[in-house]
């Protein structure tokens, strides 16, 4: 039976996420600077509903991935970025933009960026998984190193492609790299991301006890009967695919995958059976809140890029959390 404290924490998190969703659905700042509260009618309302669906799906996928990776890698700084998937997606988009430029075609935007982003993300993930195989199983240390190196190579490729792009096309690529919550998403990408988020969260919750064991040393985990190899492989692939689906939908989004598990852990504790769903809820709430905040702040250039909001606010929030929980994040 679940303990009472984690359930209360989960409920608190769900309420906070609902407030973020309501804020995004009902409050915007118009171009003349006034805050408008209320439901805007079906046409504009549909934009807001779609944006919330995107933010919740992507945030949940990043939150669940972050929680699982922090447990499997036994590293509180692990996030979906360590798999190199985000950099791979960026390289996919950069080279697609370059190819379009060389072919004299219009720069790919919006949903057209989903395919190259996904291809780049999956290619990077495949390389990382291949590199980190040891004796038929994935080795966590090699996986982190492989992810960092593949990510660095992909980032370098992006830089090369960006340098070769004409200036008027660079802005689109730079804008994509800041991350975005599309108001008119590609429904296929949204469905894939939502399915990945739900699947990974469900898997993480179902295998919660095994994940708890995996947080111990390899020998301890084996001594209590946990087969680490197959579970690690399944979880790493699941996290990689979920992150790839997120990047294809929204571009790279910083800090949510790192921060959400820490928020969840502070409220529900470190048992993965409830931590993974809680991290998914926290991720959904955080990303929706960031998108809502983005609608309200105008410092002169129109809407702030999403990546700027998640990095600035997420970074500060992470430092506060780190100070409060550094002593015992796994407690």
């Amino acid at each position, binding site marked *: 039976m679940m303990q009472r404290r984690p359930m209360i924490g989960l409920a608190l998190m769900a309420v906070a996420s609902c407030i973020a969703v309501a804020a995004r659905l009902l409050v915007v700042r*118009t*171009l003349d600077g006034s805050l408008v509260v209320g439901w805007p009618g079906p*046409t504009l309302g549909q934009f807001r509903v779609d944006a919330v669906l995107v933010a919740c799906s992507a945030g949940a996928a990043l939150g669940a991935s972050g929680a699982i990776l922090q447990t499997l890698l036994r590293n509180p700084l692990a996030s979906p970025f360590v798999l190199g998937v985000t950099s791979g997606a960026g390289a996919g988009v950069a080279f697609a933009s370059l190819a379009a430029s060389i072919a004299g075609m219009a*720069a790919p935007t919006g949903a057209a960026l989903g395919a190259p982003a996904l291809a780049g993300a999956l290619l990077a993930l495949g390389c990382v998984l291949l590199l980190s195989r040891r004796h038929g199983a994935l080795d966590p240390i090699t996986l982190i190193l492989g992810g960092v190196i593949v990510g660095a190579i992909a980032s370098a490729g992006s830089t090369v492609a960006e340098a070769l792009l004409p200036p*008027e096309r660079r802005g689109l690529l730079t804008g994509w790299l800041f991350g*975005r919550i599309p*108001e*008119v998403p590609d429904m296929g990408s949204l469905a894939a991301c939502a399915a990945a988020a739900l699947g990974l969260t469900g898997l993480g919750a179902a295998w919660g006890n095994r994940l708890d064991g995996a947080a111990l040393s390899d020998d301890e985990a084996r001594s209590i009967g946990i087969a680490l190899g197959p579970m690690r492989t399944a979880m790493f692939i699941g996290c990689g695919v979920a992150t790839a689906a997120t990047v294809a939908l929204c571009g790279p989004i910083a800090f949510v995958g790192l921060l959400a598990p820490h928020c969840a852990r502070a409220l529900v504790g470190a048992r993965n059976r409830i931590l993974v769903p809680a991290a998914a809820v926290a991720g959904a709430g955080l990303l929706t809140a960031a998108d809502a905040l983005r609608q309200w702040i105008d410092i002169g*250039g129109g809407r702030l890029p999403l990546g700027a909001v998640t990095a600035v606010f997420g970074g500060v929030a992470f430092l506060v959390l780190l100070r409060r929980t550094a002593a015992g994040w796994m407690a």
Partner: protein
Amino acid sequence: MQPILASLATAAALAFAAACGRAPVEGARTPAAGNAARIVSLSPALTRTVCMLGGQGAVVGRTPWCEAPDAVIVGTLEDRNLEAIAALHPTLILRQSSTEDPALETVAATSGASVHTWHFDRVEDVRAGLAPLAKLLAAGGIPGAEAAARDLLERHQRAIAAPVRTTLPVLFLFSVDPPMAFGAGTYVDDLWRTMGGANAISKAGYPTLTAEDVIRLAPAAVVVIGRGALPSWIGSASPVQVQVDAPDLLEPSARMLVDGPASLHRVDESIASARSGG
């Protein structure tokens, strides 16, 4: 390990020898005789303007995006190759920036060149920059430059003298995902207002919008400058959508002064036609 190190050392030595023996940068020439201008331009807009003033043959160094194929690529404003620039023995180095570049100034001083920095953003910037630039070119042996500048300004005046018919607010976008607009005080806004039009965006600069912002603005027409498919939601923002492939409106250069108004007149015709059901 030793054979590998030896191979690496040999390869490095061969590469060094090849580099030492290499001819000067392609296109590098000896210092110009007399006052003949040798121009390095680190701005595509300035290169285009120089070419329109008759100085195409004098451009010896350029960025990858400048349309002056005979000139050597010397990098970009942020990442210029100082050695390549020095090897070209320029007399004029042109750049667009709001900051100084001391290293470039040093290279220019040793080469006997002068660095000229402009900041073309509004129509008035380009107009005001034409005469001094033409004077520099004329001093560098391009005698027709000043007459060309006067001619460009006259053509510009004639082009903007004809008013547009669309007086209701129009939204000009140069990106649709996310929507990014030409706001107040930009060169497209300058041209359109001078020709009697109204910009739907009163905010200054190039604001990033959301689809909801665009629909709330409810402009009389949405004009998308550039190529590529238009998103379906634009139909909800305005019954009139015009897409125009007009590179002259994507760069504040002399071409924008002369051809920009013509592109905007085409836009005006399309809007009028769409509004009248044609």
